[in-house]
């Protein structure tokens, strides 16, 4: 991963979040949640700073970030697309929908398109099994999605449904 120098905003955000948890080591996961919510992702430099603020080793912070799938070390695309791969969605064709997204965007799960517009991830049950198969674009839920709907969902995003 390329070394980036943290912006002043990022540095002060990390420090503030850590301080709000009294810089306690045991609060690491809560700290990471808030930092990711504010900065979007957790690159190595952010992890190092968190480690310093909580007075623990960067290796341990890295160990925790990589253990939990909710934490990400790469920035998301402008339109984060998540396909539900919970069982209910799987048996109603979620995999075919995922395949079609991969094919059209030419990226794999966990990747972001070169122009930074789209990223693709797989989720496990978003609680809308009645609408299976389900696709999330940001927070917006698309239900009963067929592979043939993929093009429409993508073009809606390009028209700026999220921005």
């Amino acid at each position, binding site marked *: 991963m390329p070394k980036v120098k943290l912006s002043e905003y990022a540095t002060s955000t990390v420090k503030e979040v850590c301080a709000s948890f009294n810089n306690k*080591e*045991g*609060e*690491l*996961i*809560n700290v*990471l*949640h808030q930092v990711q919510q504010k900065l979007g992702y957790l690159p190595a430099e952010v992890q190092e700073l968190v480690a310093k603020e909580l007075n623990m080793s960067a290796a341990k912070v890295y*160990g*925790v970030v990589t*253990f*939990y*799938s*909710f*934490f990400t070390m790469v920035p998301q695309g402008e339109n984060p697309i998540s396909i539900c*791969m*919970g*069982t*209910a*969605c*799987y*048996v*109603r*064709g979620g995999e*075919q929908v995922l*395949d*079609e997204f991969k*094919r059209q965007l030419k990226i794999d799960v966990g990747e972001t398109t070169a122009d930074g517009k789209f990223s693709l991830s797989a*989720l*496990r*049950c*978003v*609680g*809308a*099994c*009645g*609408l*299976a198969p*389900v696709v999330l674009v940001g927070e917006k*839920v698309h*239900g009963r999605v*067929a*592979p*043939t709907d*993929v093009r429409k969902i993508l073009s809606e995003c390009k028209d700026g449904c999220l921005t």
Partner: protein
Amino acid sequence: MTDYKMHILVCGGTGCRASQSEKIVDAFKSELETRALDDEVKVIATGCFGFCEKGPIVKIIPDNTFYVQVGVVDVKDIVEEHVIKGRPLKRLLYHDPATKSQVTDTAHIDFYKKQVRIALRNCGFINPENIDEYIARDGYAALGKALSEMTPADATQLVKDSGLRGRGGGGFPTGLKWEITAKEKSDQKYVVCNADEGDPGAFMDRSILEGDPHSVIEAMAICGYCIGASKGLVYIRAEYPLAINRLKIALEQAREYGLLGDDILGSGFNFDIDIRYGAGAFVCGEETALIHSMEGHRGEPTFKPPFPSVSGYLGKPTNVNNVETFANVPVIFNKGVEWFSSIGSEKSKGTKVFALAGKVNNVGLIEVPMGITLREVIFDIGGGIRGGKKFKAVQTGGPSGGCLTEQHLDTPIDYDNLIAAGSMMGSGGMIVMDEDDCMVSIAKFYLEFTLEESCGKCTPCRIGNKRLHEILDKITKGKGTLEDIERLRVLGNVIKDTSLCGLGQTSPNPILSTLDNFYDEYLAHVNDKKCPAGQCKDLVRYEIDPDACTGCTLCFRNCPVGAISGEKKMPHYIDQTLCIKCGVCYEKCRFKAISIV
């Protein structure tokens, strides 16, 4: 709920919110305001009604009229017809597919007839963001009773006598767990609520927290009183923003009312609850891993004993229960042990909530008495298999469970019967499969999940499951041998016996149970290089029968890769070198001209 003449309940569960139910709430509010009815009619966003298949749901009280698939555009009509003229709006009533008649209330809808609601008693009835509505339905009466009339030992005995068993999967007797934790001597103890809900394809716990968070808070306080803990923690998935939000509001309101905090109801008992967030690791649902995660570490399980009841959070005695287990507790105090133990089967008392999904007509959240049969659940409540297809299997217990078949349909559902049949109760995922589902692929799907979620601490689970997956992959690609099938069985049993935690110990179950019940299907993949269900891409081809094809061009227009060619009104043709086997043409053709071979 006395001040208003009428209440309009709009489902605010995740499924219905995905279909814009929040906008329906807003539309009702503004429509009522324009007509100056907002003093008489109150609009409430509730938790999930369970009938997600037909969402968004709107229910009108006191008439008990149940509207399905309501849209923002229908709001004006409902207000005009129902609220003002007092007659139900026929076109939005539930249409019974069997009798072809319209049904006005839930009591007459098959989906609800066989359900018994204990844990879900308030979901869909109250506004989860208003504590007064919970209190109006006997909320916090159980806590009051325990604190003022009972000793901790009496209260624990009551839970023991009820026969309540853990709903998180294991089925351990709840009262006994409380008693063990109560006996430990320590300056500090903890009550933990497990809201990690890892089963991919289930949303019971989430719906309870979204629809009735106070029932869990009340039960945790009762548990704290019984075991001698002043602190509670809810470990909840960060992916559940709505549940988290409603829980936070509920905690705040409970504190305001003096139902949490110091000297609760003047009893001298102190108790408060904090929230801890999960971060997407299935193994953290296992209680020792969950505790490590709450302490800020990687969520790796550790060997039991010591059990959390003895040494848990920060090394202190900790009682861990599941959300649904807690949600049952207040009712048991209010209605009594006899009432509770009269429901259910001999060894499994009460009810179980299931997230019924897959190929049934009525997908949703259901609560049924223990002892009901799978047939009743799938065919009466679930309304049978979609599209008139044939039932093939039902999977319970998520990635730790197994697939049951036709022969198990009349088995009464309880903890012990499901294990005897080769599956388990699990936390409540119930996925129904039909003739189009390939059981080898299903086994592979679950194994992919466990493989991704294995924490990697012990070798049988980390390496063993990888080997199992490689073998399954070979079989679904038509490259498997008979020895491979045997190897699945042998290796599966080794992993079961030698893994450290429940995840590894149960991970081979989906394979072992499909091997037992669908051995022929494995054989077909290996010997004939065929996938009988037509799902394994490497083993199927889509072909158009020129005699049946009318040349309607529908398949041609829908094929995502342009693999289909043909003139209008002439037979079409699939170029096998281009086809990616997505199955779209097969689904679209209305003349059954396309077959999977």
